[in-house]
């Protein structure tokens, strides 16, 4: 069965500092990987996704993630965060059978 582990429930960081949000997955089949962001009192929106091809994926708002098959990881990074990046971030995995399995989320808190 597929599963997703987000290793940090909360990540505090100062504005303009770099950040990495960690995500590990388990699956015995080919996977598709996603990062979604949820701003306070809103629904989720897609940040980026890996379906195939280049293992370095660039998304919206300056975020990027790298698919590492040997380490079964899909960590999310941003070189310089802004106050507006404060939100909850969810990693998710899907196979071709259509279901998304979400991690428990990482709350990114950016301080001035």
């Amino acid at each position, binding site marked *: 069965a597929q599963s997703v582990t987000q290793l940090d*429930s909360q990540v505090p960081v100062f504005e303009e500092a770099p950040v990495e949000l960690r995500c590990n997955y388990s699956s015995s089949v080919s996977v*598709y990987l*996603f990062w*979604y962001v949820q701003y306070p009192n*809103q*629904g*989720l*929106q*897609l940040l980026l*996704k890996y*379906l195939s091809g280049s293992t370095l994926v660039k998304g919206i708002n300056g975020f990027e993630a790298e698919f590492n098959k040997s380490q079964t990881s899909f960590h999310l990074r941003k070189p310089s965060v802004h106050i507006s990046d404060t939100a909850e971030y*969810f990693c998710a995995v*899907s*196979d*071709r*059978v*259509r*279901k*998304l399995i*979400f*991690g*428990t*989320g990482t709350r990114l808190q950016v301080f001035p």
Partner: protein
Amino acid sequence: NAGVTQTPKFRILKIGQSMTLQCAQDMNHNYMYWYRQDPGMGLKLIYYSVGAGITDKGEVPNGYNVSRSTTEDFPLRLELAAPSQTSVYFCASSYSPPETQYFGPGTRLLVL
């Protein structure tokens, strides 16, 4: 183009009451999903549909029912509300997995 819309935004129910959460999308997506989000638990799939007239259970279907009579609408029914159903409910849609799922703004439900 409104995307995915959900009504109501908030609702308080008494134990044993019933209600229907409405979800509609105007993107002509075949796939629609219902999730619930509980603090620290991420999102759990309740039910999903691959097209009009076709629905299937997700991870946590007990206490819920769905129907899909049109491509646009995917209502979620709670027959006998229980405190354990206090949660935030999100509807989502996608054209075809593993493509992006688009989420509605959510319905906050409190069962007392």
